[in-house]
Structure formats: C-alpha cells, structure tokens
C-alpha cells in the first residue's frame, strides 16, 4: 500500500484553474435553474441538488481522464457536468424528453452516459461503489490504465455495499478511488446520528487504504488529493478513500423543509461557498479579471437558457418506447 502525500502541490496553470472554476460554475448555474424550474412545476419527479458541493465533482473529474470511469448518486447532476455531459441533453432528461441522455427513461436520479465514462447515477444508497470497483477490476484485467472513481455520501458509508467494495478493491490493488461527499447529513439526520465514528477516513484503515481528509469546499485541495490517489492507482498501488468535507446549501431534496438545521450552521458553511471563495481567490491572484469572470458566468447562463429551450422544445418519447432498450438481444 502506498503512502499518499495529499498536500503535495499540484501544478495548476491559470487555464486549469479557470477550468475548475468554470466547471463549478456550470454546476451551480445548472442546479440553480433546476431549482426554479422544479419550483415552477416544470420538472417531474424528485430532485436532489448539488449546490454547495461543486468543488468535489469539479476537482475529482478535473483530475480524471476522459476515459476514466465514475459512478454517481441520487445527487448526481454535478458529477455528470464535471464528467463532460452537456447541458442540453441533461436538461432534456430532467424534463423526460426523448432527446435526454436516457431518452427520458432515467430522469434526475439516473442521468448518465456510459459513453462519457459515467456508469450510472444510483437511487440506491451505496450501490454504485461495487460497480465502480468492477470498472477498476476491468481496467486492471485489460491493462488499460483507466481509473474508476465512485462518488457517494457520508450516509452511504453505513451500507454494507461500501465495505464489501472497499475490501475487494484494496485486496486486489485495483485502480479505484472512493470519494465520500461528506455533507454532514444523510437525508434529515446528522452525521453523528448515523455513524458511530464521524471521522469517516477511519473507515479506510479497515482495508489498509489511505484515508485522506479533503477540504471539499476547496477545489484545488480536491484536485490535488485526487491526483495523488489516481497516480497511486495507476501505479498499481491500489485504491484510496477521499473524505471530502462539504455541505449542501439546499434541502435533501427539493421540498425538504430543513427543520433539522438552523440558519447559523448554514451561514457558517456558506462563508466557505466555493463559488464565492474561488473566484475571489483567482481574481485576487490575478488569474482572472472580474470582467472575465462575469463573461464566464454569462456564457454559461446563455448556454443554460439554450439548453432549457432545447429541452422544452424537444418531444416526449413515444409511449411505446417504454418497451424498448431493456435488452440488447430481443428474442
């Protein structure tokens, strides 16, 4: 097993840093519009927003290659965007339109494009972890050099699937990265009501895997830790567990009354909002001007509005298509 130096500085040139910021803003903008669209009754189903947690998806996927794999969760829009999914087909999927990534069959909890290396968003807490480990196994067997990263929440670390998968990945030194998005809550229950030990990186020691505490509100910290984990993975040194501390600024799902937490706590975390701190930092460090940042925001907004237009104007799938694509080989 390797020792991973998480504090290792990674070389991030200006362009790379702006890319990280852009990805985060893409997620923030997307999710914010989804929130209003849902409130307006435009979007069917359940919606779990990623607002506040953008640095994780952006940092992890920023460090992955296009050909690497991820598995995602019920709170998966951010992962999709960071892994290269386009607004228009994502939005269309949320509307249940035929132009969506899943032809309307998946919806918010299941948007995914396996072709983009997203092996699926999951409505079953913890269930994506063994699948991610399987992709890592496949990569090892094929000698392809690909890495697989699974995103999952703090709550998911109470699920047996997480443990079985971690043990297997460590046992076989698979090129796997487990990414805990510790947003302090599983639904309406706080971390300490669900986990006997709240320092979740402890759970890595059971498998002799580096358990790395990451500032999930700092995209560069996430990027650096992921880069180190990926290097180890590709070098054949096996998996890592990144425990990214973060916070969801919105409810568990849209409609959540948030009776279980108070404004002070939320405001405390909002001060660390990566979409506040990171642009400030880049501007301060002269990487970006205020005007350039505004342009980025506007550009993204424009793309987003176009995507919403695309989704709205797309057709619903033909009802009969409900019976298609269950199998590759029909009898």
């Amino acid at each position, binding site marked *: 097993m390797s020792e991973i130096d998480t504090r290792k500085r990674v070389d991030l040139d200006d362009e790379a840093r702006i890319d990280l910021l852009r990805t985060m803003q893409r997620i923030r903008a997307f999710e914010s519009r989804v929130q209003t669209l849902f409130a307006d009754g435009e979007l069917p189903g359940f919606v779990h927003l990623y607002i506040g947690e953008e640095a994780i998806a952006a940092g992890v996927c920023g460090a992955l290659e296009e050909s690497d794999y991820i598995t995602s969760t019920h709170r998966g829009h951010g992962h999709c965007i960071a892994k290269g999914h386009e607004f228009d087909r994502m939005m269309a999927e949320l509307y249940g339109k035929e132009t969506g990534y899943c032809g309307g069959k998946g919806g918010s909890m299941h948007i995914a494009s396996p072709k983009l290396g997203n092996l699926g968003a999951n409505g079953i807490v913890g269930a994506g972890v063994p699948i991610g480990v399987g992709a890592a196994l496949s990569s090892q067997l094929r000698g392809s050099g690909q890495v697989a990263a699974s995103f999952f929440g703090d709550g998911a670390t109470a699920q*047996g699937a997480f443990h079985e998968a971690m043990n297997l990945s460590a046992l076989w030194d698979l090129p796997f990265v487990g990414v805990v998005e510790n947003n302090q809550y599983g639904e309406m229950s706080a971390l300490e009501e669900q986990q006997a030990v709240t320092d979740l990186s402890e759970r890595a020691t059971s498998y002799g895997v580096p358990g790395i505490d990451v500032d999930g509100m700092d995209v560069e910290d996430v990027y650096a830790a992921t880069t180190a984990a990926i290097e180890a993975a590709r070098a054949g040194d096996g998996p890592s567990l990144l425990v990214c501390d973060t916070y969801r600024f919105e409810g568990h799902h849209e409609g959540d009354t948030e009776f279980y937490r108070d404004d002070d706590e939320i405001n405390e975390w909002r001060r660390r909002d990566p979409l506040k701190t990171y642009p400030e930092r880049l501007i301060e460090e002269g990487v970006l001007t205020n005007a350039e940042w505004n342009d980025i925001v506007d550009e993204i907004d424009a793309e987003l509005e176009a995507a919403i237009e695309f989704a709205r104007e797309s057709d*619903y799938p033909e009802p009969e298509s409900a019976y298609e694509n269950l199998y590759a080989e029909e009898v």
Partner: protein
Amino acid sequence: MAEAATGTESITVREAIRETLSEELGRDERVFVQGIDVASRGGTFGLLEGLGEEYPERVRNTPISEVAIVGSGLGAAMTGMRPVVEVMYSGFLGVPMDQILNQVAKLRYMTDGNVDIPLTIRTQNTSGFNAAAQHSQALHQLLMAIPGIKVVCVSTPADAKGLLRAAIRHDDPVIVFEHAGVYNREGEVPVGEYEHRIGEAGIEREGEDVTVVATQVQLWNALEAAERLAEEDVSVEVVSPRTLDPLDVETIAGSVRKTGRCVVVDETPLCGGSQSELATVITEEAFFDLDFPVQRLGVDDVPTPFSPPLEEEIYPDTDDIVTTVRQLA
C-alpha cells in the same frame, strides 16, 4: 378480531397509519418503530410525523443500513419486542433481502416453532410519482414467493388501520405493503381498535357479471371502472385480496364462480407477478365456471421509466380495466 368497532369515521390512509402506530405504541411497550428518519421527518412521505416526539425512545432513526434495520428488528422480535421496521421504498427490499428470505422467514420453522417472530416490516410500492425505475416498483410478488412471511397490502384507510394493527399484534412476521399512491385516499374506517383478519379478502363492491380483483391504486381504478361500467349495465364485483399471502382463495374464487369472468389488476410486472399467482389459484378453483381465461393487467415486463408519458404507458389505468372488462362481458 380485537374489539368490536362502533361506528365509522372518514380518514385518509395516511392518518390511519399514523393513528394506528400511535395507538399501538401507546398500548404496548414492546412495540417500537425504527427506520430511516422515522423520528424526525416521520419516515417516507412524512407519514409518522410527530410520533418521534410522542415516543422518543421507541421511534428510532437508524443509519442507512437496511440489513441492520431488518436484522436487528428480527433479533428484537425474537427476544420480547414487537418491532415495526420501515423500508422506505419497496424498491429497497433487495438490500435486506437475505435477512427477509433466510432469517425472518425461516427462523421459526428451522427451530420447529421454538420462537415466535412478531415482526412487522412496513414498506410501500410507488407508481405515478415519476420516481423512476429503482424507486417506482411493486414488489410484493417477491415476498409472496417466500414461505414464512405473511404479505398484506394496503389499499384503503380501513385496510391501513385494520391490517397494520393486525400485523403488529400478529405473532408471525408480516410485511405490510403500503402504496404512495393511496396515502391521501379517504374513506370510512371503523372507530376503535379495529383489526382486519389476516387471510381475509374483502368484497369492495358487489356485482354479477365480471369479477375484478385489484389492489392499491388499481383497486381505486377498479372501483371507478365499475362505476363507469354500471352505466353500460355491466355489473362488476370488485374484490380486494388484502392479504396476498395467505390468500383468501374462498372469497375470491367464490366471486369468480358466480360471475364466470375475472380480471386481475395489479402493478407488478406480468412475468412472475401477483397476477399470475391469483390467476392460477382462481383458475384451479373455478375452472369449470370460467367462460374465459382470467385476464391479467399489469406492467408489461419493463422497469418503470421516468418520463411521465412513459410511466403512464406502462401502468394499467381505469380505461384499461374498463376495456378489458368490456371484452369479457
């Protein structure tokens, strides 16, 4: 049957469930409730709201650990408690399936009856919420296929009260399938400690020409269909099985022997669905009275798609029932 009911009141399924749990918690210290966010949020769809404040010790939020939720419920049930555990969506039953299949359902038998297992598992089927394939499922057919656990399904407020109470007081494991689509349905419920008998079906509407056997959302559709068909002078008898395992074959087959025609409507996929089980026992019991084969309505063997028009496509509705009955009548 516990106490005789005196009069009725009109409440929703949601209210009936909350009330019954509150009453049973109040009545018997051995009863406790556990599940994800049951205490704070009141469990799935907020059904149990406030119960956690009433009984802070005995309404317990668990981690997201269905194997532990069900398994620890079983251990508690074997040692003097009467747990009511919640699996939020029936689509999550795959997670604790071994505990259900091999532990809950088999431990009494394997010990030759040396221990009772008064465990209630509450869960709910979902359709019509665009919640997609994993959250939108009807899965009682899987549980019907497991000897050792009784399966009841809640369609009406009276069921909610009568079946849930019966399950809690029952000395065997019972899984109660609620349905998100009927929580807000209102109906008459006997007041007092009303209890349905496990193993007893109900005739929800009497009729002469065709028997429709239906559960949950489809029971309400069937009643609506019957109403519409009455205008066409087709008299439909609507039967609610209530208990799916054990099944009240006598009541159901009795109706079919009378009408000679039968439609079974449920939301399970057709292959291996509850419809096949019902059709089979009905056919065995009423073969020589049947004018046509029992007709099955259900999901044509796909998962539930997200998109509204797709989801609508795959589930039976009132029109489908009307059309099918018309073909028989």
